[in-house]
């Protein structure tokens, strides 16, 4: 007689993928990284009203312990190179949320000579949050979408065929 049949109320069954994904999505530590006005809304989102802490999200001061990078603001070409370095310093698995029109497509500065029109030209993006700036609710929704995306990941099968992460920029599925 199996354990499940003898004590059903004490045992949860799950898949390894699900447990891994659940732990990952429940402790998304994000890097404190603000580039322009959107960063103010990001701070609001981390503050008591929108309260990212309830998702297990906490701001980190360095990319080396962060799981998530929220690109909050206008990405200049000068900063784009540095953003790539920061992204490469983050340990896998890592996620990127592009917050606001500026980091999605350059926003209202997209024709400026110094602005990179879209952070996805530099690093892969998981979720795009539209708005200028997106309200804390919008960013929270984007982060919940990211959590949903994380829950769908298949690590065990993925690792046997093509490695999902660590490939060159832009090749990430």
């Amino acid at each position, binding site marked *: 007689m199996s354990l499940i049949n003898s004590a059903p109320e004490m045992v949860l069954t799950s898949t390894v993928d699900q447990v891994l994904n659940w732990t990952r999505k429940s402790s998304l530590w994000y890097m404190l990284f603000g580039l322009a006005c959107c960063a103010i809304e990001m701070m609001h989102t981390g503050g008591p009203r929108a309260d990212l802490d309830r998702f297990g999200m906490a701001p980190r001061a360095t990319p080396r312990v962060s799981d998530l990078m929220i690109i909050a603001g206008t990405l200049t070409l000068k900063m*784009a*190179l540095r953003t790539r370095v920061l992204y490469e310093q983050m340990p896998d698995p890592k996620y990127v949320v592009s917050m606001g029109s500026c980091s999605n497509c350059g926003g209202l500065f997209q024709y400026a000579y110094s602005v990179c029109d879209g952070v996805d030209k530099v690093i892969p993006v998981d979720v795009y949050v539209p708005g200028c700036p997106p309200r804390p609710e919008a960013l929270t929704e984007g982060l919940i979408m990211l959590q949903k995306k994380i829950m769908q990941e298949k690590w065990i099968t993925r690792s046997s065929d093509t490695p999902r992460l660590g490939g060159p920029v832009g090749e990430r599925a």
Partner: protein
Amino acid sequence: MDSTGIHAALRGRFDTAVGELAPGPFEASIEVDASVIEAVCTFLRDEEGLEFANLSNLSGADYPELERIQAVYSLFSYKQRHSITLRVNADRAAPVIPTVEAVWPAANWLEREIFDLLGVEFSGHCDLRRILLPEDWVGYPLRKDYEEQPDYHGISTVRESLLTMKRD
């Protein structure tokens, strides 16, 4: 002191190296020869009754049709509550203007900004590097004939025009 008085004081000291007083919509300006700009600024700062302790702004403008790049000095005196604008012309092909960093330390970064965006060399400046753009940037973006590079370190700067973009 009003701008006529300031101009008269400058004329008395520097003669024709200081140009006519040009009225403007907000503030009168005086054209000054590049060779005497540091002396003029020191005079304006130290002379009793003028006492321009503050360089509130130093910006630049490009005039391709006049073959010149102009630096514009906005001065203000807290003590006398008056202000004046100086203009210094430089040859567009090889613009050089002596620095006024020794007069107002604030000029350091402002001159670097003009160097960065318009390519004016401020002779005697202690640290003339780009201040806003990356050090390896090509060209001076605020010049009217600036041509953008097609990419920056592999990041394409070719942008789709919203006017020609097709919706599907």
